[in-house]
């Protein structure tokens, strides 16, 4: 009996832990911790405030981390970037497929289609060479691509979408 109970509890826990991903609309996210560095708004499934879903660096660090090494046209030598994959972020906030209007601190804006295959490996980088990035170093969030891995990524279109000092993503239809 004890064994059966243990199995049942484990299954329940697994089910509950999976639930937030499929949670009903406007289910609350935990409140952002520390300074908000990224806000996702618009047509998203979960929020933690009026603006939409706001994240501090610690919140982003809680999300699945990934990274890659590449050179960029803006930097010297091979750089190591890590952070949250854009698609993971979109899934995390329950964003439907649509266009994304991304805005930088200097009001630079680019619009991309969420389903664009070029965005597959796009990374919301929070660290460069292991260290958080200041605004002077194009941080705190820089949308980067693994340019060295694919010639298609070495084009002006992708360069123009490599938005640094990213602060807001609006999910549109």
């Amino acid at each position: 009996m004890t064994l059966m109970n243990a199995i049942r509890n484990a299954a329940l826990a697994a089910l509950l832990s999976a639930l937030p991903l499929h949670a009903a609309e406007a289910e609350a996210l935990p409140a952002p911790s520390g300074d908000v560095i990224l806000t996702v708004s618009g047509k998203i499934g979960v929020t933690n405030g009026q603006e939409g879903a706001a994240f501090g660096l610690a919140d982003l660090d809680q999300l699945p981390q990934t990274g890659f090494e590449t050179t960029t046209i803006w930097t010297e030598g091979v750089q190591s970037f890590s952070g949250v994959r854009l698609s993971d972020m979109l899934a995390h906030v329950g964003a439907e497929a649509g266009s994304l209007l991304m805005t930088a601190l200097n009001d630079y804006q680019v619009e991309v289609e969420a389903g664009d295959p070029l965005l597959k490996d796009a990374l919301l980088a929070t660290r460069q060479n292991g260290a958080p990035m200041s605004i002077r170093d194009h941080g705190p969030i820089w949308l980067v691509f693994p340019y060295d891995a694919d010639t298609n990524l070495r084009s002006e279109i992708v360069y123009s979408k490599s938005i640094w000092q990213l602060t807001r993503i609006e999910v549109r239809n």
Partner: protein
Amino acid sequence: MMPRAKSPAFSTSQWFRWMVLTLVCISLGTLIIMAQEVSQELQNLREELHENIQWNLTQIEVDLLQFENEARLAGLDPAADLAQLRLRYDLFYSRARIAMGSRCLSDAAIDSGASELVGMLRDYLDKTTPLIDAGDDRLRPDLTKIAADARTYRQTLRRTITRLIQDHAAATVASREPLTLLMQKLGWTTAFVLISLITLLYATLLYATLILRQQSEASKRENERLTSRLQATVGTALDAVIVATRDGRILDFNPAAERIFGYSRSEALDRPPEDLILSEQTVGEYRRTKEKIADGVADGSRFTVTTRRKSGEEFPAEMSIAWDVSADGRIFISYLRDVSDQVAAEQGLRQARDDAVAAEQAKTNFIAVVSHEMRTPLNGLLATLDFATEEAANASQKRFLDLARASADQLLRHVDDVLELSKAETGQLAIVQETFDLRALLDSVVEPAKAKADQMATSLTLEAPDKLPTMIGDPFRIGQILNNLVTNALKFASGGAVAVAARLEPLRRKQVRLAIDVTDTGIGISPEDQGRIFDPFVMPDASYGRSAGGTGLGLAISRGLAERMGGSLVVESTPGIGSRFTLSLPLATGRRTQDGSANATSAAPVAGHKLDVLIVEDNLTNRIVLEEMVTRLGHDVALAENGLIGVRMAAARRFDVILMDVSMPEMDGPTATGEIRRAGASRKSRVIAVTAHSMPEEIERFRKAGMLDILTKPIARAALERPIGRAATGEAEAQAAPAEQAARPTFDPERIDEISAALGLDRTISALERFCADMRRIGARLAADEALTAEDHAALFHEAKGCAAVIGHRPLTLVA
């Protein structure tokens, strides 16, 4: 010979081909290389390695302007929040960093301007950053100155950036130049290659068309030449050539056909050849042959048909048919040759041959008849001369009678020769197969001739191997040939030498080749005569006739005999030196198994038995001769003048022996014999045919009629003695037995007949007498001399055997 250069046309076309190929390869290679270059350039363009530099540079100015504005505003308000100012500075800072690290600014084309800009930016950041990063209290007092500095700095920066952008634009244009040039080059090359290829293609097509046209022209000309040659050939052919369709419609009719058949070409066209030129009985064969040829089951071999002219005259023609396929479908080409002349010539030849054969037959018949007609009176003449000689009154009469007798003998010999030759020519020479002793045979020829050789002072030698096997053959015929050869040799080698040499070479088991050379040192025979001497009636030298006194038939008969025995008789001769005749015969060795010893025990003639003999003979002379001969043998004789009388007499009384002539008026011999055998007192009597007919098939006929023995005229006394004597020993009882078995006398009757025919009656008798004397002598020696050795016995036997072989005494010949 030097190899000749290739023909110019071939060389040109080859050269052309290589040139085109090379050109196409070079063109395509160039295009491919250029396309690769362009592709690489395009890839470089697509793979942009730097950001939009104009945007970045102008953004530096914008960011600086925003910072300047923030600084100015914050300078006016002492309580202002400085976070916004700091953000603006950070943004400018990051932008400046980008510009300072940007790859495009390291581009050589804008190197001087870029390093100036980088220097300016570094100076500014180094000066301003510590101010911004200081605390708010320290920063506030400086804000007005910072704004003023930023303004000154911004104006300188603007000039630098403007110049940099202009330089960059120029550099960009310059960087595009290689691609533009490349594209232009590619364009021109492509155009050139395309034009070249199109030209080439056009030229090739033109060339090919030209060649094809030339070839077609040439083949057309060749066709025309062939056609005209064919037309000329067919037109001038001596044979009729008729071309017709399968369903029988004449398409062509050549001049020879017009001439042979009498139809003009226009008359013949479109008509069926069957109706036009073939006789009715030939149509079927023509159609069958045509279809067979069309089906491929027969070739175009020639066959003979009967054809018809326009005039209706029919004539034989030789025809051959071939087929071909034309626009009209399958066509048949018939070649016809008028062979009436040839057929007529063949018929003439055949007629001539038949005539010649008939003439030859007539000649043979004539000779047979003549010799028969001559032998009958000769028979009488010789017998009468014998009797006259015996009763001659004095020596003078006897000498005359001997002369007459010699002449008659010679005449008989000639007649016999002619008869023998005619037999040989018609293949009627009888050849026997019996065991004989070659040594004895050779002795029997050579020994008697020694006396004559001695007379002429000629040496006569015999040479033969010591060990001679017993052989099977016809010893009399061999002896006849050798006798002829030796006699001839002696005639021509007077005072010289004649050598007889025998040798044997084995052929296979129980088979040898016997070769006997008769060599003389005579006058020789000229080469041109060597081939002729074997022809009948040929005597190469006029002197031959005089000295030899022959008919010239001896060699012809000898060669005929040799060939009948499967051998040959040839001559080698050198005029003035001598001649060598070689008789060569294949002979079996050993002993004939059917030569039973029964023959050896045949009864010898027994004297003292008186027989009743009936002589049936129409010829008076012959009747008298036979009566005299039989009487002298000590028998009683009755006479009948013809068959009818003979039958009557034989029926009335039993005779022991009846001598029956064959050709008689009223009733001939065989018929009479049949009558006698049918019934009457003498139906079991021994009937002996007496005839000059010695053809084998007739002898067979006589035997069938019941004549158990046959005597050939002229009749020698000894020959007569034998069959009559046989009757005396009671052998007549055996008459129902087969004739062959009955006819086994001590002396071979055929041998005796042939000896008498060859030597003449006189010499035959003297030979027989000599034989008897020899036997007596040999017998006396064997009985009297007890000191004789085994070798002496053998020698004596050998001698006796040799003598017996010549005479045909069977028992002695068969003694081993």
